[in-house]
């Protein structure tokens, strides 16, 4: 039996979490380094997975399969397709940045009880989330996926509720109440989504008699397993609802601005760049594969919801006064693009959507982490409290600008490629939807540039005179992200090469072909 490399990518951060939590209370720095080293180790493993993955090979590779709960027909089944392997790599890549960026975010303000170890807890929880997210990208058993999908809420919940942003208006008590509100809202939204999915998971088992993705998909393809139309639609809705909450899609998005606003910037990145991707990923992997007909049936409604997300998220981002909430609404808009790309059912759209998940992860991480550095310097999240930062901290302002430009999909930066692909994929089947989606880009330019203008340009605010520029640690976090954004902006081929075969599989699941380009006959 070969080395279970996929399991290892999840076990290593889990072990890291335990090791980090076990570091004695006084040795905070040791805990941080432990966490960072384990996350780097995971990155190396993810690199090995990426290297061993053959884009043209089988659909699911590096598979593992073990009996787990035979009574429920549940197996511990892992495997990655092109989309999964890219998401695993993205997660493993972002976590070290999240840890490095949050280096000092969880230092205790005052000495608590001897056994109270917030720093250790913070980094252990991040690694725990990483382990569960990675395993959920690899799970090919619906039940296993469901368990991870639900269980990752718990460490996330403690990260949001237990470690808030220190830059807040008002008293400490008020901030604690806000934080706990955001954490509970996050948990309840996602838990309700998850429980509705649970009903659908049970329903799927009753209908299909198996939880194995490949078994069910094969049985469906060969016609062995026939689902009544209504059953299939109900099950689809049960799954989709949970993923739409997670993604998040309008009108189920309202937990995201609260959670991202109240959490520390690295945790906000963890939410939007890593954890939420499980939602969109799962739409591709589970909704389309298990319920192809129902997916097509629901396409018009979902496309409309995605469009509303794009425009509504962008409009609300324009109106925000809080930097982090602005980024959150921008993310809602971007998730609209991803969902749009998935459900227009064209190969450009789906490749674009997958690429978008990666690029959105990178660009949001860059923008949000720099914003976090900015906020920690001034102690305020309000845009109005800033001005003229580029004169006192040019490097910070410059990186902030690049992050912003990536968010608005400037050509030459990675997100442009994916947004372009999604739009092309949309135009070829739903021209009107394509036009509406394009307004999202215009609005994106508006909110990012206005944000930059208000915070970075103009006369320097008095309170900001002594503001230090990015430190070495912070630069080390931002520079690689920007380099990647530039690289993938001009040369996206390494990612698309891996993703495209997987997209072809998904397209054949839903029995869709790209519309032929129509050329007017020359007269």
């Amino acid at each position, binding site marked *: 039996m070969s080395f279970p490399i996929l399991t290892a990518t999840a076990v290593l951060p889990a072990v890291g979490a335990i090791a980090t939590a076990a570091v004695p209370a006084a040795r905070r720095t040791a805990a941080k380094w432990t966490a960072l080293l384990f996350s780097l180790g995971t990155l190396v493993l993810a690199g090995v997975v990426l290297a061993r993955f053959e884009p043209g090979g089988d659909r699911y590779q590096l598979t593992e399969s073990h*009996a*787990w*709960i*035979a*009574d*429920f027909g549940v197996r511990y089944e892992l495997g990655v397709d092109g989309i999964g392997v890219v998401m695993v790599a993205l997660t493993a890549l972002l976590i070290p940045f999240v840890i490095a960026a949050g280096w000092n975010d969880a230092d205790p303000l005052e000495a*608590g*009880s001897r*056994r*109270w*170890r917030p720093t250790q807890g913070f980094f252990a929880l991040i690694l725990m989330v990483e382990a569960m997210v990675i395993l959920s990208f690899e799970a090919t058993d619906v039940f296993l996926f*469901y*368990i*991870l999908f*639900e*269980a990752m*809420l*718990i460490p996330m*919940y*403690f990260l949001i*509720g*237990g470690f808030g942003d220190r830059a807040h208006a008002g008293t400490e*008590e008020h901030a*604690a109440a806000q*934080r*706990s509100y955001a*954490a*509970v809202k996050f*948990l*309840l939204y996602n*838990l*309700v989504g998850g*429980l*509705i999915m*649970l*009903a659908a998971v*049970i*329903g799927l*088992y*009753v209908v299909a008699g198996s939880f194995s993705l490949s078994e069910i998909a094969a049985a469906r393809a060969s016609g062995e397993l026939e689902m009544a139309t209504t059953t299939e639609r109900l099950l689809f809705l049960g799954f989709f609802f949970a993923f739409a909450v997670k993604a998040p899609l309008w009108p189920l998005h309202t937990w995201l601005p609260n959670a991202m606003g109240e959490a520390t910037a690295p945790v906000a990145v963890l939410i939007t760049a890593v954890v939420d991707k499980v939602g969109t990923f799962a739409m591709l992997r589970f909704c389309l594969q298990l319920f192809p007909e129902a997916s097509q049936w629901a396409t018009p409604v979902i496309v409309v919801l995605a469009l509303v997300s794009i425009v509504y998220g962008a409009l609300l981002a324009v109106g925000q006064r809080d930097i982090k909430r602005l980024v959150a609404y921008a993310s809602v808009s971007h998730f609209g693009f991803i969902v749009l790309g998935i459900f227009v059912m064209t190969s450009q759209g789906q490749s674009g959507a997958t690429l978008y998940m990666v690029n959105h992860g990178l660009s949001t991480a860059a923008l949000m982490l720099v914003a976090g550095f900015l906020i920690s310097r001034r102690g305020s999240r309000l845009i109005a409290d800033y001005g003229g930062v580029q004169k006192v901290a040019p490097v910070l302002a410059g990186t902030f600008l690049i992050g912003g430009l990536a968010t608005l999909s400037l050509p030459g930066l990675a997100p442009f490629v994916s947004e372009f692909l999604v739009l092309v994929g949309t135009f070829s089947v739903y021209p009107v939807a394509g036009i509406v989606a394009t307004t999202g880009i215009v609005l994106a330019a508006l909110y990012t540039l206005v944000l930059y203008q208000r915070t970075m340009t103009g006369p320097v605010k008095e309170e900001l005179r002594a503001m230090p520029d990015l430190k070495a640690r912070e630069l080390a976090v931002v520079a690689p992200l920007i380099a990647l954004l530039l690289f993938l902006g001009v040369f996206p081929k390494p990612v698309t090469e891996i993703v495209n075969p997987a997209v072809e599989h998904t397209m054949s699941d839903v029995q869709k072909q790209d519309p032929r380009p129509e050329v007017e006959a020359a007269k």
Partner: protein
Amino acid sequence: MSATAVHSLWTTAAEVEPIGSIPAPHIEYAQLAPVLIVVGAALVGILVEAFVPRRARYHTQLFLTVVALAAAFAAVVGLAAGGYATTKAQIAAMGAIAVDGPALFLQGTILLASVVAVFTFAERRLDPAGDGGRVDSFAAMAAAVPGSDQEKAAVKAGFTTTEVFPISLFAVAGMLVFPAANDLLTLFIALEVFSLPLYLLCALARRKRLLSQEAAVKYFLLGAFSSAFMLFGIALLYGYAGSVSYARIAEVVDGSVRTIDPALADTMGNDALLLVGGALLLMGLLFKVGAVPFHMWTPDVYQGAPTPVTGFMAAATKIAAFGALLRLLYVVLPGLAWDWRPVMWGVAVVTMLGGAIVAITQTDVKRLLAYSSIAHAGFILAGVIAMRPEGISSVLFYLLAYSFVTIGAFAVVTLVRDAGGEATHLSKWAGLGRRSPLVAAVFAVFLLAFAGIPLTSGFTGKFAVFKAAAEGGAGALVVVGVISSAIAAFFYIRVIVLMFFSEPKPEGPTVAVPSPLTMTTIGVGVAVTLVLGVAPQYFLDLAGQAGVFVR
């Protein structure tokens, strides 16, 4: 005389037979060993109270109780290993007791749960020690009027109520018989045998004695009512079937028995008797289970009873009562499924939703857990309704999972204390995670298990019953189940928020450091919760093998 002489008021006397020919009842002692061991130990326990000097009683009783429970458990395992759970399943004691898979599984679960619960009974490090040594959480002298001089003297002398051990053994004995009872009279006697000791145990709190006595009186009065209903139901069923034996009633319900007992010629086969009798009987069982609308006693009793007793009662009573309910519905009344299923549907729906919704407004942690137990009763009922083998095994598994979480959770409640004893008001739990991260984390694990979060036993159990219900055609019930799970999650999460994200109050409670006894209880609770969450296969197999009733 001819047959026409049979009259509804009198009948001809049979030929008088010589007395010597009354057959002695045939008792299978080996198969009844678990019950006999526990009853025997309880009787010895009474003798210990009478003859062993006061200072040696505690250790003697604790030793006796634990050994008896362990021996009874060993007997259960021995019977199961001997095939009595599967191929050799039989009816013992002249048709009074069934020895089969569900009975043995539930007896084993009850015994294990009782052992860990008895550990919390025996905890003596939580209350400040009196002059006469360390004391447990039971009244110094139960007979003394609260606040009287007599009580003060007893407290000062450091008396402890070591009677709780034999009393609880009697309760356990009743619980062991309850799910195994194979005729209605045995069922009723078992009910009384475990209920009366519980009423007594509820009244024995050392602190807040008036509250405790009030709880006991409420429990007793309502319990007496439900017993009366149940007895009435038994009488009507006897009138209907001419027998109290489960198998016989089931045959009459099926219509496979045509012979009519001449003395009951007017009533036998009367469907009204069957329906009313069955309903009354179910009512009695649903009362013990704590299902809405028969749940009114649960919050008051759970709150007033000494917390170790609450944990014991919440876990063990539920196991026993659900076992009896399962046997009644699956063995006696399967022919009536078309009639009772809609009713049980309704009961399950209101129980799940009612328990979850009312729990939101609770401010006392014991009442909160009480309402949560009501909601859980609803989830289990969803599995009962399935009417499939999976229904039985899922309910068995759920009861196993739930009982350890419950006992563990109540054991944690006993640790959080202030000057007035246990600090059960939720506001006092604020910031517990900062002061005692470990205790708060353990309680959080139990709460997450109650909420049914994956990787805990609560999730596995919930999944099992919902799956059984869905396969049994009760898909709508599953949807109601997940909705009430979502509602229920809200208040479990609220407690976690309170513990971890709220600032501790300066005058907040302290967490007592317990003896290894309570630590064992909590440790076993956490271990079972996680094992059944991550690797439940062995126990699911066990429950699956045990899932066949004998008739």
